């Protein structure tokens, strides 16, 4: 078995992982990126449509700067965020993020006279080359920065377990090279979990193929506390057909260089959401949209899986095409653009929750294990925030570095993991293939842990998950025992993580007895700031789960009410 030693192992090659690697490298600490997909080509960072302007950049007024902060705290995180961290993040975006990206070569879209093109409104944004496609050149640039710096990458390599030393500190990772089928052991002084927040746990999920909540599952097994795992975000207007386009979004955000934007129409042909009119802060109206849709669903004029429509029939083709890629969906389907609307549906998107971290250093509750980006439970969304985490975690590790001593992982742990994976590959049960178990699980999550939840459904979900664990997992059947590019084997590895994390999500959803933002409990329809403006922290306790509530400090913004029906709350 090949062994690789490095200072820091970074699991994940998205915005957070890449920037952590670049920052560590710059400070003389050797990183190694282990990526289940391809660095810069997998994970949620790729989907960044545009980039929000923070602070007073590009002529932002004081009010626009304040709006951005308010948006982040209220609409993006429903107050479940460390506001001081948010402020540090905003300042960094203004002073470091944009110059760093442009200096490295990112093309912030200009017009022919050389002005950076922005969207109008209370919160403005810019695009890397084209709106709707900003994540592509952004992440391609990161990929090239990593290559240029000579930072080593293990790509299409899945980490299957965190390894710990005799004292319980995380000191490495057990990996499988998916293309060759070889095992590798990476030994490191510290491990950064940067696996993102867009896991494919629901029938409709925005996450890329490889995202199966591995980071959360492995951190949990290593003893890390998690937080707010129930806080799931949804895309409200992703393409309904075909299934492979479930993450392709009719972006609702303000358009660059135009006063107009996409609108949504119910099955009766009535408009029920127009971003420029119906969104108080007019930026990323995800929760606002979801609430508008829920009202249509209750009125029988839409379903969460389709039966409503979105598009740009209120715009001219030229004004959409000038700076955005939004027309591509319609044209590729042979639909008349922009006249035709397309059927859309809800898709599970980001998870606000994740691994509990100290936002000053990005340490988890387990020694040696750090977090960056969406895998953390401290915030939600925005490629800029994930990038900021990359900087903070690098600084955190550099500060801790003298105290991080390289201790070898336990040989017994390595042997146990090798046998577990061998066993999964040789699985010759009589049950379904791993991919079928995955789909069964995603159906359960969609049906019972979807947009609207209640205790009955969540309890039933727990029962079905437990059935998967006891009956399906031990009886999976692989049709091919080969080593090369054996995605069936990978599915078998993934689905174990998925079951574990789904269970934690359901448990956390049962624990939070209120509705908040995109978290709808029909049996607890009110947003309850007196009891639940808290972090819903879960940690291992014996064989069970222990929940604790940790209040958030509110130094800058407060919700201004104690209790109110969630549907009546703007955010």
């Amino acid at each position, binding site marked *: 078995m090949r062994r690789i030693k490095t200072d820091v192992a970074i699991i994940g090659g998205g915005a957070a992982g890449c920037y952590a690697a670049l920052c560590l490298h710059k400070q003389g600490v050797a990183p190694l990126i282990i990526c289940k997909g391809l660095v810069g*080509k997998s994970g949620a960072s790729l989907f960044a449509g545009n980039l929000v302007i923070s602070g007073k950049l590009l002529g932002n007024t004081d009010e626009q700067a304040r709006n951005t902060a308010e948006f982040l705290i209220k609409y993006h995180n429903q107050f479940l965020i460390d506001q001081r961290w948010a402020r540090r993040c905003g300042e960094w975006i203004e002073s470091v993020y944009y110059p760093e990206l442009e200096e490295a070569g990112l093309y912030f879209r200009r017009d022919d006279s050389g002005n950076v093109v922005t969207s109008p409104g209370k919160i403005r944004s810019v695009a890397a*080359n*084209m709106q709707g496609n900003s*994540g592509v050149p952004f992440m391609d640039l990161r990929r090239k920065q990593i290559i240029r710096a000579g930072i080593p990458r293990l790509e299409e390599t899945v980490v299957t377990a965190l390894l710990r030393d005799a004292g319980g500190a995380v000191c490495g990772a057990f990996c499988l090279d998916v293309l060759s089928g070889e095992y590798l052991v990476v030994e490191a002084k510290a491990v950064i979990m940067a696996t993102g927040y867009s896991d494919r746990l629901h029938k409709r999920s925005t996450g890329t193929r490889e995202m199966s909540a591995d980071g959360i599952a492995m951190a949990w097994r290593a003893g890390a506390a998690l937080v707010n795992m129930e806080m799931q975000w949804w895309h409200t207007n992703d393409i309904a057909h075909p299934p492979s386009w479930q993450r392709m979004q009719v972006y609702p955000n303000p358009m660059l260089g135009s006063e107009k934007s996409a609108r949504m129409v119910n099955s009766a042909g009535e408009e029920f959401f127009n971003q420029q009119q119906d969104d108080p802060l007019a930026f990323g109206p995800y929760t606002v949209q979801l609430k508008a849709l829920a009202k249509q669903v209750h009125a029988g004029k839409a379903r969460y899986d389709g039966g409503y429509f979105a598009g740009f029939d209120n715009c001219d083709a030229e004004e959409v095409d000038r700076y955005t890629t939004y027309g591509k969906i319609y044209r590729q389907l042979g639909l008349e653009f922009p006249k035709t609307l397309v059927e859309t549906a809800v898709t599970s998107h980001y998870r606000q929750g994740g691994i509990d971290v100290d936002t000053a250093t990005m340490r988890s509750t387990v020694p040696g294990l750090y977090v960056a980006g969406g895998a953390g439970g401290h915030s939600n969304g925005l490629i800029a925030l994930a990038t900021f985490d990359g900087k903070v975690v690098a600084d955190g590790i550099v500060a801790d570095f003298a105290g991080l001593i390289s201790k070898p992982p336990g040989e017994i742990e390595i042997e146990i993991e090798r046998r577990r994976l061998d066993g999964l590959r040789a699985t010759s049960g009589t049950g379904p293939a791993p991919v079928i178990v995955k789909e069964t699980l995603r159906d359960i999550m969609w049906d019972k842990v979807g947009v609207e939840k209640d205790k009955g459904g969540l309890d039933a979900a727990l029962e079905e998950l437990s059935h998967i664990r006891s009956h399906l997992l031990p009886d999976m059947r692989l049709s091919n025992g080969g080593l090369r590019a054996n995605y069936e084997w990978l599915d078998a590895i993934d689905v174990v993580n998925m079951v574990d994390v789904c269970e934690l999500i359901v448990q956390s959803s049962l624990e939070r007895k209120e509705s908040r933002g995109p978290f709808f409990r029909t049996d607890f329809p009110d947003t309850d700031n007196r009891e639940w403006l808290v972090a819903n922290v879960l940690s291992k306790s014996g064989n069970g789960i222990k929940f604790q509530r940790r209040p958030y400090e509110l130094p800058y913004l407060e919700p201004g009410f104690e209790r109110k029906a969630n549907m009546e709350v703007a955010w």
Partner: protein
Amino acid sequence: MAVTATILSPASRQGQIERADTLVQRNALLTPGDTITVRIKRSAGAGAEGREQEFAVPYQKWMRVLDALNWIAENDATDLAYRWFCGSKMCGTCAVRMNGREVLACWEAVEPQMTIEPLRNLPVVRDLVVDRSPYENKVASLEPWLRRPGDYAGFPEPLSHKQMKNASKALDCISCMCCYSACPVIRLGGLTDFAGPAPLVQLGQTALDPRNDPQRIAASLERTGIFNCVSCYKCEEVCPAGIPIVSQIIEPLKAKAAALVPAMAHHAFAVRAIVAARGRVDPGALVLRVQGWRALLRLRRIVRLLVRGKISPLRTVLAIKTAAAAPARRILGRGPS
């Protein structure tokens, strides 16, 4: 045909016009309930013998090639190896050949009868999964990064979209390697040092960016073998991102190479000078200019070319002009030689 007219609106992608006008028809070929026949070329990897396996797949609304592969992997062949990550034309990892042309599986509509094979010009790992590393290594060897000759001016630096017109097109590249698979010059293997269309588009992202240092661009261009491109437009034809690869990337890069590293363009300059002087290509003169008088030592070749009427020594020696010489000179000028 109002629909077609909309599709071909000014902002539509030039490179896709040929195929764009059939989009409506292609999306309407099938209706839910139809069965499509999918034949997949499978193999255990490099050097292993391939086999073709056939599947019957129920058509779903607006089904893409990737949906068909997913259906097969969930129902008939759970061990089918194929690569994809995003399913939305961003990651560029799901390209395959469908009925003899390169397509992005997540983007292309299914057809009633489909034969699906892995991309060409790259080693096969298993089934439809190819080894991307030959392409990745070429891209890295061109060092396609931005290096300013001076200091960075701070955000936002002076730059206009006019200056970025071609580079901006190159930034649409998702590294799917469709063009790399379709390129007939890459197909020749080691016979040329041509980097290939996709690596050139990747280089174009920064080499056609006015912020970049010309000296660095020159050094990168020297490693591209760019004048081996035969401008056959195969790359443009298959590009799912609709990038005008020849007209807006390779041609501007060739012009840069000619200006920055004239020796690379020796052959192109010779053709230009001969056409400007004589109004036609004179193969004999071209060979003499490019290879020098040593070309005369290759007697067997000369005889072969003479027999086939490819060269005419008399015409070459007397520098006979055609009637097109005057207009050609007017258009091309004498040009650098």
